[in-house]
């Protein structure tokens, strides 16, 4: 583990053509990290995520994505992802490969990645159409009962980015609230980068809370507001208006391009702290 600026951490870990998971289940989505990757121009990426939302809409709209591995591509609480649709339906700005799973499959595949297994086994996809279109859905037979169980390859991203509440000065990371799939996404990755709201002397975490030891993480970067417009449990609220607005921005190719130029390409990760003004929660 090393403390780095987000710019350094991205330059240090992301290459053209690599596979990246930016994980976060509505909560703690690493928007600042994703924007930094967009700014640094890496392309031909395989993006992995259970719930690709605005961030992946942006990557796809910029033409940086070769392949997307996912289970639900929507704008949560709003509707569809218009840049992803444009790519899937009209190949604009270029076609994308799709490897589509169910949530259960993705969750199990990350779990298998974290557990060092080559594949995950679960009861799933019974009668489901994805089995017909995704060659990475196979089966194994239980040697005791003969039951046919679904199998999918373990997910092992080259890099995982997550956002968390805080790290201590050794780089140990604490996540609280809806922890989603982030621990697994970090442990499954070759390298993990964590952006945090703050760095503290002592995590003061109960023994049973979700803590990632510093030696499981490649870099920790302090980026206050780094989840915006997603939220951080106990720190700031979700910016629901931004999700609604995105639906309008992403509806038009030119409006999208203009917005990305202004708010991502000409911005920096330092801007995120400003974006959560008015959304902060009183410390509890």
């Amino acid at each position: 583990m090393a403390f780095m600026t987000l710019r350094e951490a991205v330059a240090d870990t992301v290459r053209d053509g690599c596979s990246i998971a930016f994980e976060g289940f509505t909560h703690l989505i690493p928007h600042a990290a994703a924007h930094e990757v967009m700014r640094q121009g890496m392309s031909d990426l395989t993006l992995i995520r259970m719930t690709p939302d605005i961030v992946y809409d942006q990557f796809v709209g910029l033409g940086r994505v070769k392949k997307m591995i996912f289970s639900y591509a929507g704008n949560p609480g709003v509707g569809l992802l218009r840049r992803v649709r444009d790519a899937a339906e009209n190949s604009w700005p270029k076609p994308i490969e799709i490897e589509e799973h169910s949530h259960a499959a993705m969750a199990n595949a990350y779990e298998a990645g974290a557990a060092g297994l080559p594949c995950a086994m679960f009861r799933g996809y019974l009668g489901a159409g994805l089995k017909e279109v995704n060659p990475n859905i196979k089966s194994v037979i239980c040697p005791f009962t003969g039951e046919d169980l679904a199998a999918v390859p373990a997910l092992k991203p080259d890099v995982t980015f997550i956002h968390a509440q805080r790290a201590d000065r050794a780089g140990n990371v604490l996540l609280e609230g809806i922890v989603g799939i982030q621990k697994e996404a970090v442990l499954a990755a070759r390298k993990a980068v964590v952006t945090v709201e703050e760095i503290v002397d002592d995590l003061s975490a109960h023994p049973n809370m979700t803590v990632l030891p510093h030696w499981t993480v490649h870099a920790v970067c302090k980026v206050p507001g780094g989840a915006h417009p997603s939220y951080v449990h106990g720190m700031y609220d979700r910016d629901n208006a931004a999700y609604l607005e995105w639906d309008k921005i992403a509806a038009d190719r030119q409006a999208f391009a203009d917005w990305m130029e202004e708010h991502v390409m000409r911005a920096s990760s330092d801007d995120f702290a400003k974006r959560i003004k008015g959304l902060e929660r009183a410390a509890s």
Partner: protein
Amino acid sequence: MSDFTPDEMMTIAASRALTNDDVCFVGIGAPSAACNVARLTHSPDITLIYESGTIGTAPDVLPLSIGDGELCETALTTVSVPEMFRYWLQGGRITIGFLGAAQLDRFGNINTTVIGDYASPKTRLPGGGGAPEIASSSQQVYMTCKQSRRAFVQTVDFYTSFGHGDGGDHRQRLGITTKGPTLLITDMAVWQPDEETKEFTVHSLHPGVTREQMRDSVGWDIRYADEVVETEPPSAEELTVLRELKARTKAAHERSSRSGSRSQSDG
């Protein structure tokens, strides 16, 4: 009893199907409203579970997404997503999986993946999320969806989640041991599958709904039960609870968004 909208009737009729003992895996949108109305009226002890990991949640306002902070803050406990899908859903502990649908057929098969061909879709929808395994691992599935010819189709374009397939014992033939869709509540009617064929059959029509309206909103020849009753209209209490929930939700979501000036400054 005051006037009510078809949407309100749908949510309230759906809420009535739930009980205090249910452990309900809640899809977002219409299912979420129905489940919370049940909790706020006749079933205060119902266990609501959202796939983000929140177990036994009791939100004061409806979540905009399945991962809203309110869900975690009011939950009995919050687990990781792999645990949610392994121990809680696959473990067989969910009595009711409550799903919405973009497109469904008369056997309760649901499509939320694509309209048109999978490889070159006419409309790319979000995909299944948790639905494929909610449909197979929940003890039974309730569905709620507004009727329209676009949504209620002869054949779904994609089997996102499996209902009764081609009907009859199709589930059993695939080795699925759960009941599958047992109830469909729309803005016009309450449907239940025929015991033999598993075709969804109308058992009650909401007040004022005619068979002509039904025909115009459904893409197949509708089967009616021998005795079709009128759905009990919303009670004053049900309507009040639902409307107050919606009003609280609207106020909270506006409050938690910053003012319009935000979009000029930083998007």
